[in-house]
């Protein structure tokens, strides 16, 4: 980098001459993409379990060591130096963006994708060579930028450090930890002690604890009134926004029909054509409704959503339409369980959605139930997850949370001298904030000490080959 402010704007810098800029960055992106795709086509995708313990910690250590050592020993090297600067950051970010954009448009599953998409690894992006290379480039740039700013460590770089090191730790931890992540499900039946679990591929494994389901609980929201086309059973689209919750006394207008709920029972049984409240296995909700049309004619009748034991019942209001009761939706569901550990502990607890329970390094989640039976389900599926790298990722995440607060304080005060804006320059409209730099010599522009930490500090414009 030149310290001479007087250098006239240079002609395009030849490629691969230090300092590298954006052109080199784009070429590197292209090279990584081509190599990655070639490997993908010849060697196939990556094995997601290849980097399990301890290979992952070794790889992560070596990668980080290489970046730290590279900066400490070879910062004069064009590649090392370049990786620590913005052109590498922006081009690597662009490469990741490109790959993730493809992922954003492609169903990430083999089924439903043409063969060439599968072969190029686009339908399994995170397990593909181009993605691996992109991430390595991205992390090298991120790591090198971090090294550049923390050698020597200065107090006012703390915000920069939190963001960049935090992101590095979170992403590297997440990538390397993926192979050690275990997700299995345990199918529980009321009153049965279960020691085993199966993973997504259906492999069985023994768990270091056992779980017994005492009771599956579910609470439901009240069902809704819907207007349907009798023949198809489909909800009339125009009436969707007019559906309303059923409860005694509720009343609403559905595209002209006035619907009034006269009675509602959350659990009921059918007796002589009408419904009465009962507490019984499989008893469905029911309601007595009165429907009045625009001419003032009304009919009354019972409707029910039915259950696995009883059929549903509609109220026909003309030869085309009926009033129906929707199937109630779950508001809460959870499992009362007893967990037995090998050390003889016995834990009585409740596992609910959003409230997992920790046992011996595993977290247990309420996963599903037998939806044919709904609230009468006597089975419950618990997902057990072990993620030993979680503390690493969380360290990164909490650093990033702190760093984002720093980011919010970066704004600058409004400009005072809006009258003295510089003229439009040759190719760009001037942005007034650049004014600040015009009186500053290149020398102190380079020196970190003379700049307040928060002011935008551009590198000298040596990369004219840039975008």
């Amino acid at each position, binding site marked *: 980098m030149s310290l001479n402010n007087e250098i006239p704007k240079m002609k395009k810098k030849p490629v691969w001459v230090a300092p590298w800029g954006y052109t080199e960055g784009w070429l590197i992106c292209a090279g990584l993409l081509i190599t990655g795709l070639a490997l993908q086509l010849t060697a196939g995708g990556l094995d997601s379990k290849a980097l399990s313990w301890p290979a992952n910690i070794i790889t992560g250590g070596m990668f980080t060591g290489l970046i730290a050592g590279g900066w400490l020993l070879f910062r004069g090297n064009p590649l090392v130096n370049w990786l620590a600067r913005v052109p590498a950051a922006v081009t690597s970010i662009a490469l990741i963006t490109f790959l*993730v954009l493809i992922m954003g448009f492609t169903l990430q599953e083999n089924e439903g994708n043409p063969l060439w998409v599968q072969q190029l690894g686009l339908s399994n992006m995170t397990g593909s060579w181009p993605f691996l290379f992109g991430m390595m480039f991205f992390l090298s740039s991120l790591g090198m930028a971090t090294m550049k700013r923390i050698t020597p460590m200065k107090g006012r770089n703390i915000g920069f450090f939190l963001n960049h090191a935090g992101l590095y730790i979170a992403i590297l931890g997440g990538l390397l930890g993926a192979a050690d992540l275990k997700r299995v499900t345990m199918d529980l039946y009321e009153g049965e002690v279960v020691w085993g679990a199966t993973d997504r591929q259906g492999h069985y494994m023994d768990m270091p604890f056992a779980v017994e389901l005492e009771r599956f609980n579910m609470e439901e929201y009240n069902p809704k009134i819907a207007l349907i086309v009798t023949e198809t059973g489909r909800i009339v689209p125009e009436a969707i926004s007019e559906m309303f919750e059923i409860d005694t006394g509720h009343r609403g207008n559905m595209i002209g029909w006035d619907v009034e709920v006269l009675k509602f029972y959350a659990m009921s049984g059918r007796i002589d054509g009408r419904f009465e409240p009962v507490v019984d296995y499989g008893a469905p909700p029911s309601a007595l409704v009165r429907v009045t049309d625009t001419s003032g004619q009304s009919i009354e009748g019972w409707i029910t959503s039915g259950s696995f034991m009883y059929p549903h019942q509609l109220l026909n209001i003309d030869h085309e339409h009926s009033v129906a009761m929707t199937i109630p939706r779950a508001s809460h569901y959870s499992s009362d369980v007893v967990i037995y550990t090998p050390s003889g502990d016995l834990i009585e607890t409740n596992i609910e959605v959003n409230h997992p329970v920790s046992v011996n390094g595993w977290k247990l*989640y309420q996963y599903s139930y037998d939806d044919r039976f709904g609230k009468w389900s006597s089975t419950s599926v618990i997902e057990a997850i072990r993620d030993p790298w979680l503390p690493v990722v969380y360290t990164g995440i909490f650093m990033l949370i702190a760093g984002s607060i720093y*980011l919010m304080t970066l704004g600058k005060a409004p400009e005072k001298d809006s009258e003295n804006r510089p003229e439009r320059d040759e190719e760009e409209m001037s942005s007034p904030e650049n004014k600040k730099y015009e009186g500053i010599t290149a020398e102190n522009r380079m020196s970190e000490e003379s700049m307040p930490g928060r002011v935008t500090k551009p590198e000298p*414009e040596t990369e004219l080959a840039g975008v």
Partner: protein
Amino acid sequence: MMPIDPTLFTIAAIVLWALGMLLFAFAGEKKVLKWAAHGSFLAGVGVLVVFTWLLWDILGRPPMRTLGETRLWYAMFLPVIGYATYIRWDYKWILHYSGAMAILFLAINLIYPDNYDRDLMPALQSIWFVPHVIVYIFAYALLAGATIVAVKGLFIKYTGRNRTWSMQPADNLVYLGLGFLTLGLLFGALWGKEAWGHYWMWDPKETWAFLTWIGYLAYIHYRYHKPKRITAAMWMLAGAFIILLIAWFGVNYLPSAANSVHTYSQ
């Protein structure tokens, strides 16, 4: 079945904003009209705040479940941000644009009225729900402000009017917006761990949230490095906002989202 009429509140807010903007445009030096302009514009926000608060109370859950409900919050935040930007930088036009966008979003809610119901699926019943959504929508509104600055700059550039254009308000809004966006993303990750067992699964909604985030990340780094190249920067902001809109509304329509766990937003 709503004890209050959402349409009434929506129309009231729209009328108050429109009136405020008109007054701002024609007040000139007249003190009274200026005060009326501020009053009307802020009253529009006030109406929406009251409505949202009532809605929350009536539904017994945070009104943040459906796309229409998120638009409500957006329409509440955006004029506030436009107003604050106006007060701070004296850019009256940003107030107008943010007001117009807020009106547009409320108008969408008028055309597609929401079916407000109390149901909240168990996965959404979490202490993370409210901070996650609020922080996200606030970020979206800030970034919309930045986009307005950029698009107006592009307009000035390509219509050949020889004027200078400052990206400083855009930069400041992006710093703030990206800060909030990062928080939203991370709150989502922490919540995902509690609700679905993992903090990041490259679900389509997450994929597009990541794209939005990294787009603005590219912007701030590029700005930091090449502060003079503002045309490229303005295009980046415009592009990033398109990605943001896809992440917010578009994902549901993409084939890649066939198996999304985030289908509750419909």
